[in-house]
């Protein structure tokens, strides 16, 4: 492998829209979240962000519908005791789909526990993804194969890994963009700050996408920060910030697409804040009635990412009854495969406890593996003698 020599800084910060604009202005997010299709399904033009064409929107809409079905099916499987826990992204599917769709094959995605739909949309086998939440093993897929990091549980830590992958890509001269996801609560963590600062200082191709769903478990955004918006934080690190309607698939594709292109062209990192809402409980262990009213939740129903895109695509006449039926069938197929996959009990291997701690087992681990093997074989033989 060769590593390019020289400074860390890529040449000039590329700013594509109209010149001249002050550096500060270029870094500040738009006054209101970027929106391209409003909750009524009407196109609302935006000076800086073009509307993606009907074909791409239809393809993404299909993934949106499938994503919703994954969320609903997974929730049902938790209720049936088939899965240990599922942090649902119901209501946030537009962010999930856009995050996966804007990346090329060689790019990397860094998801959190809530981003199962993004990981599946990226193309990872759903059963491998759900391994974590079923409880068979921490990560069921190979991150290197899919260029999808393990779903991060400790908040904001993955953002630094994303910077590291991007920095390595830059050193190796790879054409790789990294998109890293986090929630609004995670922006209070030190690792969030360090990741953004590192990304800006090393000028690496990372897009940070905050899914601001208004709550970190029970704590509302106003108790998390008093910044004008989370996107405003970008200017403090010296990178552009942008706010986008997180329930508007079209706007997300356009805003994230631009940030990814900018990163790919050597323009450095971008911070994007998507305004969305967590429609369901944090996880099945959560009781949202303790901290928010049903009225508040219902205010978000008309903003649903699916209904507005459906209306828009029907009006555009790229979606008809037939198309809808085909999409619904694809979603059902996904749901059925999840049910089938989770219907059987996982086969776990106790030896695996010791197999992946070090590349070679230490003598200490070999002894412990022997101990467990002995216990298990005694159990087996005692089971055999019981009448």
């Amino acid at each position, binding site marked *: *492998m*060769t*590593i*390019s*020599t*020289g*400074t*860390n800084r890529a040449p000039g910060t590329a700013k594509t829209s109209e010149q001249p604009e002050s550096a500060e202005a270029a870094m500040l997010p738009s006054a209101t979240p970027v929106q391209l299709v409003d909750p009524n399904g009407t196109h609302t033009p935006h000076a800086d962000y073009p509307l993606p064409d009907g074909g791409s929107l239809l393809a993404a809409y299909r993934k949106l519908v499938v994503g919703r079905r994954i969320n609903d099916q997974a929730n049902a499987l938790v209720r049936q005791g088939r899965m240990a826990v599922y942090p649902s992204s119901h209501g946030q599917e537009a962010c999930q789909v856009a995050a996966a769709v804007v990346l090329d094959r060689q790019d*990397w995605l860094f998801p959190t526990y809530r981003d199962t739909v993004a990981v599946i949309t990226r193309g990872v086998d759903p059963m491998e993804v759900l391994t974590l939440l079923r409880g068979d*093993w*921490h*990560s069921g897929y*190979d*991150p*290197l*194969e899919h260029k999808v*990091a*393990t779903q991060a549980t*400790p908040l904001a*830590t993955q*953002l*630094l*890994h*994303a*910077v*590291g*992958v*991007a*920095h*390595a*890509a830059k*050193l*190796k001269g*790879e054409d*790789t963009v990294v998109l890293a996801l986090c929630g609004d609560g995670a922006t209070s963590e*030190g*690792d969030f700050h*360090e*990741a953004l*600062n*590192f990304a800006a*200082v090393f000028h690496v191709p990372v897009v940070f996408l905050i899914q601001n769903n208004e709550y970190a478990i029970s704590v509302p955004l106003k108790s998390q920060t008093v910044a004008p918006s989370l996107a405003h934080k970008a200017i403090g690190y010296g990178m552009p910030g942008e706010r986008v309607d997180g329930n508007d698939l079209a706007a997300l594709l356009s805003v994230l697409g631009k940030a990814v292109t900018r990163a790919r062209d050597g323009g450095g990192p971008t911070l994007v804040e998507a305004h969305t809402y967590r429609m369901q409980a944090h996880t099945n262990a959560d009781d949202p009635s303790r901290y928010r009213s049903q009225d508040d939740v219902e205010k978000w129903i008309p903003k649903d990412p699916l209904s507005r895109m459906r209306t828009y695509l029907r009006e555009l006449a790229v979606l008809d009854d037939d198309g809808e039926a085909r999409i619904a069938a694809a979603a059902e197929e996904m749901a059925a495969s999840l049910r089938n996959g989770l219907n059987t009990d996982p086969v776990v291997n106790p030896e*695996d406890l010791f*197999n*992946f*701690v*070090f*590349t070679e087992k*230490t*003598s*200490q681990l070999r002894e412990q593996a022997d101990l467990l093997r002995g216990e298990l074989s005694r159990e087996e033989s005692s089971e055999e003698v019981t009448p």
Partner: protein
Amino acid sequence: MTDTTERVIDAAAELPDAPQAGELNEPGQAEARIAGPVTFAKALNAALADAMEADSSVVMFGEDVGALGGVFRITDGLTARFGTSRCFDTPLAEAGIMGMAVGMAMNGIRPVVEMQFDAFAYPAFEQVVSHVAKMPNRTKGKVKLPIVIRIPYAGGIGGVEHHCDSSESYYAHTPGLTVLAPATVRDAYTMLREAISYPDPVVFLEPKKLYWSKEVLDLAELRETFEASTAAPSIGRAVVARAGTDATLVAYGPSVPTAMAAAAAAAEEGRSLEVIDVRSIVPFDDETVCASVRKTGRAVVIAEAPGFASVASEIVARIQERCFHSLAAPVRRVTGFDVPYPSPKLEHFFLPSVDRILDTVDELQWEDQA
């Protein structure tokens, strides 16, 4: 206010044989095929340079490791020789350094990071414990993290607070981390090179008080031996640093020279002490330690860290479990007290001393005292 780091450097500069600025300025000087006095610091510097020369995916970064060459000058000259892509300064953020190293390792780089001082690695602890140690396990071995975390470590240099912690127990307690603590100049070179070629993450503890200790060595020969893989591996292998018959002193890192001095003093009193240099805390070499204890029947474990819930405790437990029938006396420890690392004027009361070791050896139920 004086910058604490500078003050520690001043303290280090007051140690005998501290290098003058620029003395270490030619990394990889190993070319000169002559045996001469080499400092521990120089051996580490040469190991880094040789590793970077041998493998272009090795990248060194941290705080002040570039132009300055690190506050202890261990990275001296690396940026000049290999460029800022291979050895560079980061913003002042330890979690950032550690987390970025994780991502870089995921993408084919072999990061070597410097944590400026033991106690300043704590902001990175979350990254170390939750990700560095666990990533290979979480991914069933698919994602390996060949990261080396170099930490100038432990006391005895008259440093101000937060510059002298013995943090090995935190790391040793975390499954997935290989933890090394060399004590000799030869091991400093060889073990750092082994650590850099290792497939798993390594916490590499560099005893600060040994940085300016010297040995007569031929670095070129060491490099050739290492690169020809003719040297016996050090990771997972303890060594008998001094042979003896009456009792075993088990030590690692900064405590090894103290144990050696104690054994030398005991010899003058007619007692033959064997000294085991553990070197590799994880994996731990039970075999070498137990062979010695079975032979001598008595053992004292020496470490600078506070003794409660420590690596020293672990070693004592392992000896009791494995050598019980060979023991003529309970296994004892000589460790730091269970107090925060003391200020310079008090540290000599805290550190395991030759006298404390000899007193403890005297208490090992010798027949002649019965």
